[in-house]
C-alpha cells in the first residue's frame, strides 16, 4: 500500500485547519500530489492544464453577473426589502423554509436551475431574509445579520442536494447505476432514486427545525432589545 499517497490529503486538511488562503492550500497540495504520484514536471503541468480546461464550464455562471449587477444598482435589493416589509410579519426562518420546500421539490422534479447562489440567493432570497430579520429586530446585531445571510445560502444548498438525488435522470443516480452495472449488479434508476426519499424528508425536517429555532432566537433578541411583535399583542 502506498501510504505516501495520503500526504496530499494531510496537506489539504492541515491547510484548511490552519485557515490558510484556499488558493495556497490548493497550490501546495497540487505540488505534493504531483510529487507523490511520481510525475515529471512537464507531465504534471500537462495534467494540470488538461484538467483545468475540462472544468471551464464551471464558470458559465459569471455570465449572470452583469444582469445581477445592473438590477441591483437600480435598487432590486431595496425592492425585495419593501416587498417583505409590506407582507407584514414574515420571519426569516419561515421565508427560508418556504424557499427550502420550493427548491427541494423543484430539484426532485429535475428543475435544478430554479435557484442558485448567484441567480437567486444574492439578488432575492438573502435580501428578503435580511429584511424580514430587520423588520422584527430593528437594530439587528451584525453577527445575526451575517448568520441570516449565511443561512440563506445554506438553505439553497440543502434544498438542492437533498432534492436532486430523487430525480431519476440526475447524474448521480446514473453514476451509481453504471457503477453497479459494471460489476454485475443490475439496479434500476427508479429504485435508487426512491431510496433517496427518506433522507430527503429527514433533511427537510432537520433544516426546517433549525430555521424555526432561528426565528425563535430572533424573537427573543427583539424582546430583550425592547421591541415586541409589531402588532403589539402581548399575552
Amino acid at each position, binding site marked *: *500500500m502506498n501510504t505516501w499517497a495520503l500526504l496530499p490529503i494531510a496537506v489539504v486538511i492541515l491547510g484548511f485547519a490552519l485557515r490558510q488562503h484556499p488558493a495556497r492550500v490548493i497550490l501546495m497540495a497540487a505540488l505534493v500530489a504531483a510529487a507523490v504520484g511520481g510525475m515529471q514536471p512537464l507531465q504534471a503541468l500537462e495534467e494540470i492544464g488538461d484538467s483545468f480546461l475540462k472544468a471551464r464550464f464551471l464558470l458559465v455562471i459569471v455570465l449572470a453577473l452583469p444582469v445581477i449587477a*445592473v438590477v441591483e*444598482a437600480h435598487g432590486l435589493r431595496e425592492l425585495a426589502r419593501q416587498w417583505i416589509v409590506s407582507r407584514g410579519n414574515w420571519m426569516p426562518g419561515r421565508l427560508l423554509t418556504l424557499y427550502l420546500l420550493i427548491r427541494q421539490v423543484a430539484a426532485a422534479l429535475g428543475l435544478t436551475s430554479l435557484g442558485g447562489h448567484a441567480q437567486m440567493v444574492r439578488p432575492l432570497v438573502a435580501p428578503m431574509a435580511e429584511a424580514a430579520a430587520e423588520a422584527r429586530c430593528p437594530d439587528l446585531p451584525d453577527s445575526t445579520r451575517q448568520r441570516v445571510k449565511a443561512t440563506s445560502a445554506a438553505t439553497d444548498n440543502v434544498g438542492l442536494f437533498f432534492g436532486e438525488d430523487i430525480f431519476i435522470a440526475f447524474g448521480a443516480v446514473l453514476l451509481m447505476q453504471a457503477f453497479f452495472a459494471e460489476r454485475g449488479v443490475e439496479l434500476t434508476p427508479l429504485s435508487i432514486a426512491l431510496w433517496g426519499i427518506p433522507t430527503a424528508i429527514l433533511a427537510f425536517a432537520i433544516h426546517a427545525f433549525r430555521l424555526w429555532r432561528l426565528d425563535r432566537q430572533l424573537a427573543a433578541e427583539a424582546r430583550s432589545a425592547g421591541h415586541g411583535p409589531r402588532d403589539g399583542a402581548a399575552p
Partner: protein
Amino acid sequence: MSLTPLYWLIGLFLAVTSWRAASDGQGPRAWARAALYGCLAILFLAGDVLPRALVGGLVLVVAVLAGFLVPAQVAVRSTAPARPRGGSRLLWPILFIPALTLLLSFGLPHVQGAAGPIFTAQSAALYGLALACVLSLVLACRVTREAPISATLRGADLLESIGWAVMLPLLLAMLGSLFAKAGVAQALAQAMGTLLPLDRAYVAVLAYGLGMAALTMAMGNAFAAFPVIAGGIGLPYLVQVHGADPAPLAAIGMLCGYCGTLLTPMAANFNLVPAALLELKDRNGVIAAQVGTALPLLAGNLILLGLFCW
C-alpha cells in the same frame, strides 16, 4: 456542439474585467488583479490551441496571483446610479434567467442539425444558462435604460468583488484530477480496509457512511468519492459479505457524501463562492451555518443505512 463558443463569451467578459482592473489606478494592486483576470481570459479564449504544458503553467500563475498577490477584498467602485429606474419591473430579468434556462435546457436537445441533435443534455444546460443570461441582460438594459456596455462594466466590478473565490472550483477540479493520478482515494480506502474490522456489519456500515462523508470532504466532490468507497467497502464487504441491498446502499451512501459536501471548503462553488457573493465576513460562514444540519443528517443516514439495507 462544442463548448468553445461559450468559453469565448466567458473569456471576453474576463478580458473586460482585466481591462477594468488595469484602469483602476487608485485601487490596490491593480496590476496583479489585471494579470489574474488576463491569465484567465487567455485560458478561456485560447486554452484549446495552446500547448497543454503552457496552459498548466498559466494555471499555476493564476493560483500564485490569487494566493499571494491579489488582495482578498477589493473595494468595489461606487456603482450607485444617479437615478434608480425600473421599479418592480427590476424583478423580471432575475426571474427570466431561471425560467429561460429551464425552457432552453429542455428544448435545445430537440434541435436537429444535419447529423442528428446539435446539443447533448449537458451542453444544452450550459448553453441554456448562457443564452438566458445574455437575453436577460438585454431585458435588464431595457428595464433600466442602461447601455449594455455599462451593464457589463458593472458585472466586471461585481466579479472583482467576488474575487478569487470564483476560480476556486476550477483549481479544485485540477487538484481532484491530480489526486486521482496519485491514487490518493484508493490509498485512503485501503487504509480503512486494513485498519478496521470490516467483517463486522456495523463497523462496515459506519466505515462506508463516514468514509463517504470524509472522502467527499477531502476531495470536495461526492461523485469522486463514490466509486472509491463503494468499490472499496460497499460492494466487497457490505453487499458480498454482509448481504446488504445495493439500491438503498448506493442512494443513502451518496447522500452521506452530500453531508460531507456541506462541511468542506473544498466544495468551493457551494460553500466559498456564496460566502463571497453575500459578502460574509467569515469565509467559512456558509459551512458554519450548515454544520447543524449536516451532522444530524449524517447520523440519520447511518441509521437509515442500517434500517433499509437488510
